[in-house]
């Protein structure tokens, strides 16, 4: 059997780099949020980066290689149910399995909401997201409440994610985590049609630059708050 399997590229390089960059941004946002007053500016930069990564991922879901595309892994509810009900451990998924596919977009949306809510909130002292002054105080407070609650939800989701991929890696020995580093999974010899043959690095770089420029523009276009003078 073993000789029948050979490593084939599933996750293109941009997707892998994106994944670990997202981990860094979330960890950074968390640590800087806890570290207090002097770290809030850094918190904003991690948050902006996370937002740019979210935009990039949405674009890559349409313009990336096969297994990075939403059309390849967002399965119908029927497929998801069938997957949950399956009796025999099926063949390992090439890309995301039906659950993994949906959880990937859920995490991206959650992180997007988290970073977007940050744009509107303030600590009522010194630091404020660039769009804090365009909403009234009660809206800002409401969004700040979500900025806290959503993060708890993200922590919970990520924990579940890590448990799930660990189970697939060490329980079912499917090499999922290794695949998020080198991009390859062991697949039967014949199934080359689903392997990815290129990284599309240049295209990814271009998309990342566009995403970063969009976020930067959003931040720079923010209106200056009006202060009262007596």
């Amino acid at each position: 059997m073993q000789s029948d399997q050979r490593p084939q590229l599933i996750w293109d390089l941009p997707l892998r780099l994106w994944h670990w960059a997202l981990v860094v941004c979330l960890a950074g946002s968390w640590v800087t949020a806890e570290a207090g007053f002097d770290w809030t500016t850094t918190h904003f930069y991690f948050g902006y980066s996370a937002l740019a990564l979210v935009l990039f991922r949405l674009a890559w879901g349409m313009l990336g290689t096969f297994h990075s595309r939403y059309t390849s892994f967002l399965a119908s509810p029927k497929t998801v149910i069938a997957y949950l009900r399956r009796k025999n451990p099926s063949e390992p998924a090439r890309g995301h399995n039906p659950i993994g596919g949906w959880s990937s977009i859920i995490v991206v949306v959650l992180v997007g909401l988290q970073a977007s809510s940050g744009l509107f909130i303030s600590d009522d002292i010194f630091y404020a997201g660039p769009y804090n002054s365009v909403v009234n105080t009660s809206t800002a407070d409401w969004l700040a409440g979500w900025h806290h609650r959503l993060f708890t939800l993200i922590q919970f989701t990520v924990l579940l994610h890590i448990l799930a991929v660990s189970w697939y890696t060490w329980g079912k020995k499917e090499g999922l985590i290794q695949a998020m580093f080198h991009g390859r999974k062991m697949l039967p010899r014949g199934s080359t049609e689903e392997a990815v043959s290129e990284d599309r690095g240049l295209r990814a770089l271009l998309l990342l630059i566009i995403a970063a420029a969009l976020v930067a523009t959003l931040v720079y276009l923010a209106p200056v708050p009006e202060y009262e003078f007596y």
Partner: protein
Amino acid sequence: MIRSTMIFALLFSFASASWADERTQKTIEARQGLLKVVAQYFGPIVGMAKGQIPFDAALIEKNAGKVAELAPMITDLFAQDTSASDYATEAKADIWADYEDFSAKAATTTERANALVAATAEGRGATMKAFGALGSSCKSCHDSYREKK
């Protein structure tokens, strides 16, 4: 007779309960108003620190002076324990568990506001450093005694 006494007693207890409630509500609103005023004077200095408006030492001196006058009022307005009330407030009950510490934090803010007034004579660098210290004194009290949103 007994009946009307009971009704009277009932009405009286409602009235006194709602009177107590109104007093609590007034106090909480006054506190929040006070802190809004503090923030109003604090605001333009934030704008200067971020480079959104031009640095103006005279204005900082004036506004920091106001903050130094307002901060001691925090201790006055929080003296009444309102932790039993369900009127919307972000004030934590811990305030009244350790009112001395709470008052000390307000005093630190007063001191640092005064230090900021003094620092305006020493140029921009010293002023902004003193302003940072003032801001972290606000933060320090919020971290301990203000509910997260």
